[in-house]
């Protein structure tokens, strides 16, 4: 395939070929008009010079048309047929004219189109084209013919074209230096000046019609040689002509004689050509240096690129349109255990496991047909490679494509993900194991919970029965045999009864505490003020005669388990109630306040209070800060309260002053925060 550079020149060349057709056609038509309207200027340009005959003009028009048809390399059959007609006509005209000259036969061709009445020394055979013209037309016809026939005869065409140029140049130079002998081959037949010019143009047009021949490539190419040709050819034409004309003019005007003229001519030629050659050499050198620069920087960037590719950790493989490896970087060598030299030219499939090869091949083909620049391979299925020793391994791969003038190339970048997959597999199995363990542990815990429940159930039942006996029969004893007992004896029985009652309470409290940790929180919006009011009513009912003042802040709500919060308040308020037994003016306050930028609930009483030194013991189970004789209590109440508050995510603390009262503070954070 030709490179884009020469492609352009091809276009240009055939364009100029077309231009030459236009010129030939135009001039020919103008001359024909000159003959029709009898305008001497068109017929011979310079007055008194030879005229272009009507046949010549017509022949040029036919040449123009024929060359137009065949100037491109792909000639359609219809075009070809017409071209044959054209060339045939040209050859016919030329041949008949030449035969006329040779055999003195007048065929009538000369006067066929127009009458030529101008009989003069230069025009012995009126209307007949000169020998040279006829001969040139014969060459032209043959040249065009060789272009038309569907065989590779271009070179013959070009040789004939060159021959035409030579003949025409002879005539032109003759006109230039007024050398009659040159433009009139025979005294009575001369080629007109515009005829000669048209022949040159026509020949050039024929040559330019096939720019891909060796001959034309040198002239039209972009290599330094072609540049040189294009620089020097004009000089080769113009310099001798101008220098020659100078000499001729000088001699003709008598400035110097022939010998001087020749010497001058030679000198100037030497000078000019030397200068030209030096100049060209200079240009070529510069071009070569420039090119070497370009080559160097290209080589350096290539080296850099190769360095990058080779140093990369991922395998980078480039394949051509047939999926044969073109580049196989070092990482690929290591990954697949092939030397890069072994893989170049090999099909990519060599590194793909057998069963995937066909699918893979097809997929790359399909990808090649899309416009997508790159994509990850194997998004739908796993991709694996196979090493030289037959080991298969999983890979992560991506593919990209570029289209160059030399064709499509694909680049595949691969990463061995064996380790990663192993890690993933390990992770997955560890996860499964963990899940399993969690399930086991949950079942285990659930079982333990159930055991605990059963345990506390039987505890509650079985422990209470003997208590009832203790209590019941000591009572019975007192009732039935009390008269036989003195006060001390009755006192003993009393103690027994009290102790059993206490134990019953203890069991209940313990059970409740245990149950608390297990139970699920049933969260609702609870109206705390209302709870406190209800409990205050309950307490008032137990001892209606007691005067207690209640200050309950209204509208206080919180999120929590209503049953558990009930226990909290029963305990706190019950405590407050209990510990104010000795006070006359009892006052219990429930409210909410801001403490350290938090909202805190509090229950305050003005009862017995407690010593702050023992505040740490306050919430411990069974810890009491008062003797039972002073205030009854099992000591579990506050432990229970604390457990409940903690389960709600809140905190509880207390302040007390002996004989002045105690305040219990607690927080109940929004449970929605807790669950985050």
């Amino acid at each position, binding site marked *: 395939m030709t490179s884009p550079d020469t492609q352009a020149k091809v276009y240009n060349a055939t364009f100029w070929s077309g231009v030459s057709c236009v010129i030939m056609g135009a001039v020919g038509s103008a001359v024909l008009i000159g003959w029709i309207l009898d305008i001497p200027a068109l017929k011979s340009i310079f007055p008194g010079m030879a005229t272009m005959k009507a046949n010549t003009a017509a022949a040029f028009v036919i040449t123009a048309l024929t060359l137009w048809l065949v100037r491109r390399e792909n000639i359609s059959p219809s075009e070809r047929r017409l071209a044959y007609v054209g060339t045939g006509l040209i050859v016919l005209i030329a041949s008949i004219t030449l035969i006329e000259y040779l055999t003195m036969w007048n065929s009538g061709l000369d006067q066929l189109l127009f009458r030529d009445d101008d009989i003069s020394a230069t025009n012995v055979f009126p209307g007949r084209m000169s020998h040279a013209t006829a001969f040139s037309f014969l060459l032209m016809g043959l040249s065009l013919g060789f272009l038309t026939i569907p065989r590779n005869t271009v070179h013959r065409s070009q040789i004939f074209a060159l021959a035409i140029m030579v003949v025409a140049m002879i005539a032109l130079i003759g006109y230039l230096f007024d050398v009659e002998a040159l433009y009139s081959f025979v005294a009575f037949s001369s080629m007109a000046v515009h005829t000669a010019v048209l022949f040159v143009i026509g020949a050039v047009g024929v040559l330019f019609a096939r720019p891909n021949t060796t001959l034309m490539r040198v002239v039209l190419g972009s290599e330094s040689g072609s540049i040189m040709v294009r620089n020097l050819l004009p000089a080769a034409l113009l310099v001798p002509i101008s220098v020659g004309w100078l000499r001729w003019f000088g001699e003709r005007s008598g400035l110097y004689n022939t010998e001087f003229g020749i010497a001058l001519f030679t000198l100037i030629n030497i000078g000019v050509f030397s200068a030209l050659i030096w100049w060209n050499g200079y240009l070529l050198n510069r071009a070569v240096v420039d090119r070497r620069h370009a080559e160097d920087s290209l080589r350096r960037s290539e080296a850099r690129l190769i360095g990058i590719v080779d140093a990369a950790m991922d395998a980078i493989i480039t394949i051509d349109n047939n999926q044969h490896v073109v580049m196989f970087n070092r990482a690929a060598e290591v990954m697949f255990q092939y030397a890069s030299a072994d893989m170049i030219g090999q099909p990519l499939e060599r590194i793909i496991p057998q069963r995937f090869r066909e699918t893979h091949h097809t997929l790359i083909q399909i990808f090649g047909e899309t416009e997508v620049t790159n994509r990850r391979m194997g998004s739908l299925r796993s991709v694996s490679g196979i090493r030289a020793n037959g080991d298969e391994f999983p890979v992560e791969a991506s593919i990209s494509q570029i289209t160059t003038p030399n064709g499509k190339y694909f680049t595949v970048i691969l990463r061995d993900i064996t380790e990663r997959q192993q890690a993933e597999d390990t992770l997955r199995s560890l996860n499964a194991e963990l899940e399993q363990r969690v399930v086991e542990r949950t079942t285990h815990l659930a079982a333990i919970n159930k055991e605990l429940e059963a345990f506390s159930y039987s505890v509650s039942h079985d422990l209470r029965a003997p208590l009832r006996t203790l209590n019941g029969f000591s009572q019975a004893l007192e009732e039935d045999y009390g008269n036989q007992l003195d006060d001390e004896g009755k006192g003993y029985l009393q103690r027994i009864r009290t102790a059993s009652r206490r134990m*019953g309470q203890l069991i209940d409290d313990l059970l409740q505490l245990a149950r608390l940790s297990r139970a699920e929180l049933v969260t609702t919006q609870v109206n705390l003020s209302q709870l406190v009011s209800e409990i205050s009513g309950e307490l008032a009912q137990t001892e209606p005669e007691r005067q207690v003042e209640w200050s309950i802040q209204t509208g206080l709500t919180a999120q929590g388990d209503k049953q558990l919060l009930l226990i909290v308040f029963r305990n706190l308020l019950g405590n407050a109630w209990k510990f104010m037994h000795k006070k006359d003016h009892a006052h219990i306050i429930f409210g909410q306040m801001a403490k350290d930028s938090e909202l805190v609930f509090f229950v305050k009483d003005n009862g017995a209070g407690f010593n702050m030194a023992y505040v740490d013991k306050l919430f411990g189970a069974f810890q009491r800060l008062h003797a039972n004789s002073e205030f009854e209590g099992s000591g579990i109440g506050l432990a229970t309260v604390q457990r409940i508050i903690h389960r709600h995510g809140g905190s509880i603390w207390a302040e007390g002053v002996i004989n002045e009262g105690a305040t219990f503070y607690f927080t109940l954070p929004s449970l929605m925060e807790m669950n985050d």
Partner: protein
Amino acid sequence: MTTILLVEDNADDEALTLRAFKKSNLSNEVVVTRDGEEALDYLFGHNQYQGRDTTQTPHLILLDLKLPKIDGLEVLRRIRADERTRLLPVVVLTTSSEQEDMIKSYTLGANSYIRKPVDFTQFANAIQQLGLYWLVLNQSPTH
């Protein structure tokens, strides 16, 4: 003469209950069965109670839940399953404070559920109130 069937396995509790009844001055006969099986035998005239007139049903059944052999809830179920005893008042008298037991008892058709207090005085009061209500005030459907 009103008859009370007391189903109770604990001998102490039995003695205390009987004592309480005595103190409440309710004239009645108390039949004591010590496990679920015996209770059902009595009610339906099986085994050692063979030949008893089963139309003579007790006016009140005091049923403990934790019984050997056949458990209290099962006894309740069978009482309610049989035409002869379906409508008899059954008061569950138990130490259990489990919500579940209470719900189950009511579901199976118990008329009342009372937790035995530890304190005897309270217990005696409860029995007295019980007796007054169920034997005197309440209209029994079968008698």
